[in-house]
Structure formats: C-alpha cells, structure tokens
C-alpha cells in the first residue's frame, strides 16, 4: 500500500496570450516523450505553456481507404496496426461488426476466449503504459519492471495466437485456432506472478512523494469538458464520467461477468493514473472468473468462404485499453466495405490536450500527456 499525500498545487498566474516574450518549440516528431511521431508545436512564456497545436499525420496510412479494397476477412488484420497495444481488441471490434451485419452466432467457447484475450491485452497495454508513464516523469527503473509482467502475457499470446503484438487471432465467427493446451496453466502462472508483484508498483511509483507531487492537481479535467471533447476510457473515468462500453452497452459475455467500472472523481493526472492501475485489477478479476470456466465446443462458427454483408450500415463499439473504439461499416452488399470509419479513442483524447495543460509547465505537459496514453498510429490511422 502507499500513503496518500495532500498536494497543494499553486500554478503561477502567467498571462496566457502570445506576443512579446513568447517563443515556440517543437516537441516531436522525434522526442522521447511523445511515444512515437506526434508533433506538438508549443508556444511558451518561459516555462509556462500558452498554446499547444498538434500536427498529425506522420504515420498516416489511410487504413480506412485501404480497407475499402479488402474483403471482410482480410480487413481485420490491418486494424491491428492502428492501436498496436490493444491490437486484439481492435480486431475484436471489426469481427463484431462483421458478425452483426452477417448475423453470425458466435459459439460460447469463442466468446469466452475472445474476452480472455481482450482482458489480457488490456493488462499488457496498461503495463506498458505504467512503465512509460514512470519514464515520462523521469523514473527509468519501473519501465523494465513493467516489461517483466508484460512479456509473460506476450509469451502467452505467442503460444496461442502465434504472434506477440499483432496477433490477428480474430476471424468473423470466432477465433482462428483453439487455445493452446498450455494456455490455462500459463495464464494461472501469470496471475500468480502478477499478484506477487503488483505491490511493487505502489512501492516504486504510486506512493512516491515526488510522483504524487508531479501528478496531483495537474491537468485537471471537468466532467463536462471530458464529454464535450469526446474523451473516453480512463481519461473520462478519471473525471467521474461513466463510459465503460463493457458496462453500458455490453457485448459478448460482459453482461454476465462480475467486474466494477473504475471511477475517480478528481479529474487530475493522478486520478487517471489510479483508474488504469485499478482497471488492471478488474481485468485480473475477469480473467480469474473465466480461466477455469471455458466452455467446451467450437471455437469458430461455420461461415461461408466469401462473406457478403447486406446493404446497410453497421456500427459497433468496444472498450479498448484507451477508450471507446467505434467501427462504422457502410456496406453496398459487396464483398468489400463501401466505406469504413474507425472512431479511434486516441484521436478524441488528443484533442483535449491543449485545454488540459494550458498554463502548466513543460514538465506537466509531459506528465499529463503520459496519462492520456496516446498511441500515435491510433490517432493517425
């Protein structure tokens, strides 16, 4: 456990307009703290941030356009390359959308496997975020400690799905293979490892007085702002906005599972940090409920070789590690989508950045941006 410290934040009142005495710096596209090729043009007055303007597109591949020429089986693999840290959940959203259009009934075993994989991916993603977050505020050691648990999940993924990051394990109607015979044992080993190590996270980072000083009272977002800017996931839940798609619009078997939606009301960086840490525990809860209860049966529904969605529009929403991912398929009845739109969580979460850190210091920008958990390919698509 860690000790809570009351932090009084006194952000100095510097006039927040451009003009005399201000200068701009470019953070990115190559910068240690942007976790990729995000480019922010920052106007500064001394150390105080006056304006932030994101420049995107350095890794834009126009996945939406690419998908227009791929069949419904093929397009799923491309979405792994959007939010590569929750690749599995992206694939899940696409598979769900195709199943909704084709009205395919997914076997119970496949549903459980999918949810298990989703939650493992979510833990892995939050693990990496935790390490990167600590690195953003200047602590290097937690990064390596986070990788210890994350690698265990990646090994499990590698054994069952055949790849560590971009698994492409989902197919319309189920999953590609059955789970590996070792899967259950290794997941249980992981649960044991996780439980024996999770207290170190609090010892190393959460309870640290310097860390709490850096996070508390920084980047405060009100619930109204969060909704208006369309933020989802831990960013919104840190401000007390209930937005967990798994609870609100349950898909697969989430309505039968016991887990809590983590809500914090402070709305600052520390609240968002705590939401993610607690979400990891909730995911562990889900995995624990399912790991011994994988029903027997098919892992894949019988589908036609060539999938054709009926004419119409289909929208599915899932909860990725970063927030709400929407997949919007417009079908003309052919084998390829007519138009596909991915409503990515990162894009909306990034738009609040300027509002969030105006008037803060450069150090705060990095810390607050870390709590947004941006994955740049997810923003650029």
């Amino acid at each position, binding site marked *: 456990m860690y000790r809570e410290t009351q932090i009084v934040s006194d952000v100095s009142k510097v006039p927040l307009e451009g003009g005399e005495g201000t200068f701009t710096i470019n953070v990115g596209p190559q910068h240690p703290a942007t976790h990729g090729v995000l480019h922010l043009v920052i106007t500064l007055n001394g150390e105080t941030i006056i304006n932030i303007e*994101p*420049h*995107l*597109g350095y890794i*834009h591949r*126009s996945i*939406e*356009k690419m998908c227009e*020429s791929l069949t419904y089986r093929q397009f799923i693999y491309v979405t792994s390359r959007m939010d590569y840290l929750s690749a599995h959940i992206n694939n899940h959203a696409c598979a769900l959308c195709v199943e909704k259009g084709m009205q395919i009934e997914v076997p119970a075993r496949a549903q459980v496997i999918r949810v298990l994989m989703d939650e493992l991916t979510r833990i892995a993603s939050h693990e990496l975020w935790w390490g990167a977050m600590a690195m953003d505020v200047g602590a290097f050691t937690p990064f390596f400690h986070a990788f210890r648990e994350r690698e265990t999940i990646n090994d499990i993924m590698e054994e069952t799905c055949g790849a560590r990051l971009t698994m492409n394990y989902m197919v319309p109607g189920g999953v590609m293979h059955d789970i590996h015979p070792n899967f259950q044992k290794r997941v249980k080993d992981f649960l044991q490892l996780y439980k024996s190590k999770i207290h170190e996270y609090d010892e190393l980072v959460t309870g640290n007085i310097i860390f709490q000083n850096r996070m508390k009272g920084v980047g405060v977002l009100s619930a109204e*702002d969060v*909704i*208006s*800017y*369309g*933020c*989802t996931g831990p960013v919104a839940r840190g401000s007390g*906005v*209930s*937005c967990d798609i798994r609870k*609100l619009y349950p898909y697969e078997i989430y309505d039968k599972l016991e887990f809590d939606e983590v809500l914090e009301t402070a709305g600052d960086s520390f609240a968002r940090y705590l939401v993610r840490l607690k979400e990891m525990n909730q995911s562990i809860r889900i995995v624990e409920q399912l790991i011994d209860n994988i029903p027997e049966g098919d892992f894949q529904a019988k589908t036609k070789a060539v999938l054709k969605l009926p004419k*119409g*529009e289909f*929208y599915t*929403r899932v909860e990725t590690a970063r927030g*709400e991912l*929407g997949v*919007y398929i*417009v079908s003309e009845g052919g084998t390829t989508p*007519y*138009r596909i*739109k991915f*409503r990515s969580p990162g*894009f*909306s979460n*990034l*738009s*609040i950045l300027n*509002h969030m850190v105006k008037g803060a210091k450069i150090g705060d920008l990095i810390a607050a941006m870390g709590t947004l958990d941006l994955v740049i390919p997810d923003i*650029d698509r």
Partner: protein
Amino acid sequence: MTNEELKTKITELLPTATYEEGGEWLNINIEPADWLFFAQQLRNDSSLYFDYLFCLTCIDWKTHLTMVYHLSSTKHRHNIVVKAKLDRNKPEIETVSHIWRTADFHEREVYEMFGVNFLNHPDLRLLILPDGWEGKNPLRKDFEDPVNMIKL
C-alpha cells in the same frame, strides 16, 4: 427514451426531418441548412440532452456526400444518427465545434479527407495531410495516387 419516443420528440422539433428504417439506432435525415439549429436543440433540450458526439464522419456516394453524426446522451443513454446530404461539388455545412468540442478535430479531418467546408469553424486547416497539400481529397472515391496506392 426509445427510438419511437425519440422520433415523436424530434418530429416536434424539426418537422422536415425524415427517418430511415432499420438499424439499431434512429436514423434522421435533415437538410444541411437546418443542422445548426437542430444541433443546438439536440444538445440543449433537457429530455434529449445529446451531449456526446461520438462519431463524426462523411461518406462519398459518388453523386453526393453524406455527413454522418452519431450522437449519444450520457444522461439518458440513448443514441441517434443524424445524416445530412451535401452537394458533391460545393459541400458546405455549419460547424458544430462550439457545441461539441470534439467536432473541432473530427471536422478538420473530414475537411481534408473529403473537402467538406465547415462554415464558421474557428480553425479549419489541414490536420493530418502535410502542409501545402493540394489536389484531391484522399477518401473520396475518385482519388487516385499512382505512386503510393498499390492496386491488388
């Protein structure tokens, strides 16, 4: 509110709106000129209270463009889809970035990808495409890029 209740409520607000059947959410077709008024009503009416714009996109139908707005209410937990048909040669619609701030980025994306001109948008510049991008809009159906697009 259920879709039926939403339908009656919205018909009161905007009698010219037409509805599409099918789909899990209520699909509303409106004229682009009505959009600003309608959006304000949707956001501010306490029984509708659509405060969360969760998807904003555009579809190129080769003959015309369609703006698609997916709206949700965090209070009442109901969703609607609003569609507005735009002229393909001179697509123009009022911005809603002051009603839902998330529209700011999403409209900039649609602006560069489809060439839709959002009237009164505070900062309508290229967001994803490189500075000085000229020519066609990448997500339109007639876009060709012989260098970077590989035909399979």
